[in-house]
């Protein structure tokens, strides 16, 4: 409900300070627990136990669409009145639940105790619980904790908190050889493409974090250089830096330009000759650019409005404006990590209206007034906007779909083209 437009020290293409609107008020975004929906699939032997309320359980099940019912690797320890009233010792209760769970699921190798709003408010110390339970279940099961509480995390920040809690578990890299670490969840198929690309460039060894199995955690040390594949990993990056690893400044691998910048940062750090880089990447760049052409005709000049959601908004806006010639009406993002996004902000048009934070009612007013051609927003807003005649794209799909890398550049563009094509097709 307060708005301030300040000239922040964010470098734009021209050296003029970039204006970022800061807004606070009702935030229509998920909390960090939502990250469990993809993390429990990414790390295949991990289990996520939320310590929270019935609301937390209902949130994850609703965000997951209730459709991915096959053997969920997450659950909620629902706190009840007697836990809050101090009639039962929350720690004893938690031990009982974890024992019950691990007995039922002997395949679990890594268990995350995930803090929630209520567990934060009653100050339930999950780090001590994790330590105590780790001792009991070691070496079969590793037990860690992080907070997915909406008081502290917004949507994708849950992945950040999860990965940050894993960093201290990574073994020290013992070699003096430089290695590359790619940080942030991506689809397995995308990782495989990047592995082939780094191979061709002669960059290696390459590790991914999070890994597909908790027993195959990457190593980290002073010779580790890491690339962030996702823009929401502030704490994880900080933890990795604490372990001596060095972050390579790069744009995020969305679109041809972003992917090239991402790969080039690694190539430069590993001393790969520019000629080699061009030779290796050129065929893929050309192929991706060709695939994008059809979508450029559909999307060029179309006006797009982003509601804050996944923190992917800035890189997406950069891709859509530079590679598909879309016009940015407003780019809302829950947080603007100026350091991690520095390379992105250099590329983003200087006059792009960035909003950090949210007052959803005011933002809806601006959106209705601007009548953009397409709006990127969460599931709570999409159908109401469609009913008002405004075309929308669910932002959550951008987190669940393989969109990074050259081969997915056109798929990413298609996600924005499809709602427009659909609206044009429907006559009734």
């Amino acid at each position, binding site marked *: 409900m307060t708005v301030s437009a300040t000239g922040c020290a964010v470098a734009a293409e021209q050296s003029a300070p970039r204006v970022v609107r800061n807004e606070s008020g009702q*935030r229509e975004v998920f909390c960090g*627990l939502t990250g469990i929906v993809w993390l429990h699939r990414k790390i295949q032997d991990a289990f996520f136990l939320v310590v929270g309320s019935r609301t937390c359980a209902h949130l994850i099940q609703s965000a997951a669409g209730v459709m991915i019912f096959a053997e969920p690797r997450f659950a909620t320890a*629902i706190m009840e009145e007697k836990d809050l009233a101090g009639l039962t010792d929350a720690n004893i209760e938690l031990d009982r639940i974890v024992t019950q769970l691990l007995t039922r699921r002997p395949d679990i190798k890594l268990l995350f105790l995930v803090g929630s*709003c209520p567990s934060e*408010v009653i100050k339930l110390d999950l780090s001590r619980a994790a330590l105590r339970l780790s001792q009991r279940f070691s070496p079969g099961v590793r037990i860690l904790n992080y907070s997915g509480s909406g008081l*502290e995390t917004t949507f994708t920040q849950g992945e950040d908190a999860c990965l940050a809690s894993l960093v201290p578990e990574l073994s020290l890299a013992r070699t003096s050889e430089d290695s590359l670490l790619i940080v942030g969840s991506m689809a397995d198929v995308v990782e495989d493409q990047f592995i082939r690309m780094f191979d061709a460039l002669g960059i290696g060894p390459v590790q991914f974090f999070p890994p597909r199995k908790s027993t195959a955690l990457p190593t980290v040390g002073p010779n580790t250089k890491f690339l962030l594949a996702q823009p929401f990993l502030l704490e994880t990056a900080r933890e990795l830096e604490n372990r001596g690893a060095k972050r390579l400044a790069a744009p995020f691998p969305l679109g041809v330009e972003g992917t090239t910048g991402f790969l080039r940062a690694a190539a430069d750090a590993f001393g790969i000759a520019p000629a080699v880089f061009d030779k290796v990447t050129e065929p893929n760049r050309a192929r991706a650019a060709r695939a994008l052409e059809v979508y450029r005709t559909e999307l060029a000049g179309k006006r797009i409005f982003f509601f804050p959601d996944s923190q992917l908004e800035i890189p997406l806006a950069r891709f859509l404006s530079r590679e598909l010639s879309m016009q940015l009406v407003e780019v809302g993002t829950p947080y603007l990590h100026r350091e991690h996004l520095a390379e992105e902000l250099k590329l983003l048009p200087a006059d792009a209206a960035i909003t950090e934070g949210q007052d959803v*009612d005011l933002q809806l007013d601006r959106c209705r007034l601007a009548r953009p051609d397409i709006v990127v927003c969460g599931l709570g807003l999409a159908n109401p906007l469609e009913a008002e005649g405004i075309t929308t794209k669910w932002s959550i799909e951008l987190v669940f779909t393989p969109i990074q890398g050259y081969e997915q550049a056109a798929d990413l563009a298609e996600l924005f083209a499809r709602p427009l094509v659909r609206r044009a097709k429907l006559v009734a």
Partner: protein
Amino acid sequence: MQLTVWTYEGPPHVGAMRIATGMEGLHYVLHAPQGDTYADLLFTMIERRDKRPPVTYTTFAARDLGGDTAELFKSAAKNAYERFKPQAMIVGASCTGSLIQDDPGGLARALKLPIPVVTIDLPAYQRKENWGAAETFYQLVRALASPSAPAPGTARPERAPGVRPRCNLLGPTALGFRHRDDIIEITGLLGKLGIDVNVTAPMGATPADLARLGDADFNVVLYPEIAGQAASWLHRIFHQPFTKTIPIGVSATKEFIVEVAALAGVDPAPVLKAAATRLPWYSHSVDSTYLTNKRVFIFGDATHAVAAARIASEELGFKVVGLGTYSREFARDIREAAKLYDVEPLITDDYLEVEAKVAELHPELVLGTQMERHIAKRLGVPCAVISAPVHVQDFPARYAPQMGFEGANVIFDTWVHPLMMGLEEHLLAMFKDDFEFKDGAMPSHLGTGHAAPVAERPAEIDAPAAEAVLVSATTETTTTAAVWAADAEKELHKIPFFVRGKARRNTERFANENGVATITVETLYDAKAHFAR
């Protein structure tokens, strides 16, 4: 603490949202952190509502906890009033909101808004969604209808001659299972009886409508889980009688007609005589013979589960082998009904327990909620949905009530459709070796897209989660000293997959009870004869 994988009900404030979202001109200000805004998608995505729920969340964050969250609540309530101009407001807190003890009711009163503001206190760590909906509706009715309550001790005035009787329809909410269409069906039925609907609430009602609930002669309670408490209060204060029969199924609809006709003082005979329903004839027609004693497992909210059991047994000729509910508040209704079918009532909100029960009972049809749809899919059993919680496909584009005579038609179609048709079942059994009749063949009218995994016996399910649970739950039935001889095992595989699990279980039980160590082809047929129904 309670370990929960999936929940049948959300927290109680989601129940309050179902009331607010169903109504018009009401706004809900909820003291809650940002994550709680997920609840909007239940309405905009699952129910495909074209408007945002009328809910303002304060979305307080960690940094606010050290500051003034009370001030945050007040400004949110004030802004919501100014922006949405509702006729009335409800205020409350979600589970986290209630822990910070800001007293939303007191804060809202301090704003002195020129509209009724009703405080909804919901014990988030004790109660659940349906309770929250019932409590919210009751508090709203009480607050808004009280001013027009008759003085204690005054009798209801007689209806003037020539004036048509009027009733209220109570209980339908947003996100309810077919509430949208039940209202139309029952309003039409009442119209045929010469009864007008005064107010339908909460769905579609404004706060001003709630204030005139007392104008009706009696109340029709469509969903006791939601309207029971409010109807009791209206009975006490306004002396309005209310209906007890839930008009789901042909017999229940007829009884409902008789009940409302008595309350309204009209003649039910013409409407009963003109009853247009195809269910009884479809059930009597010879092609339905194969439905006889199909084993059906039923789970849902108490109202729908009890109604489904009666229809299944009396109107379709199925055999009820399991009956349960997740609504502990209505456990008694289920226990009573379970006695009629001689089954053990299952009162639980633990999804894993329900799954284990379904696996153990080997039903041929599951009637349940969205959860049972997934259980059934996993076990390869046909399923139809009869109760909330439901998913997007249970808000069909077509008119599909559950109540009244058309509801009975819909139920016949919905429940029979997933089953293999009688002659097809026979052909499968007779020509087991036909190359097109491979294991797992589904009813041909459902196409290959519906092919479900074969779950011959629970322990063979390859999902580790299910396995771990199911094995422990079915130990008694699957632990056996008897071993299968190769030829008997081969013979067993000639039995269609959808009854093979039962055949295997029965044969093993027979072998155990008779001290047979090796199950031969003869044992298989001995058991078949023994268990022949």
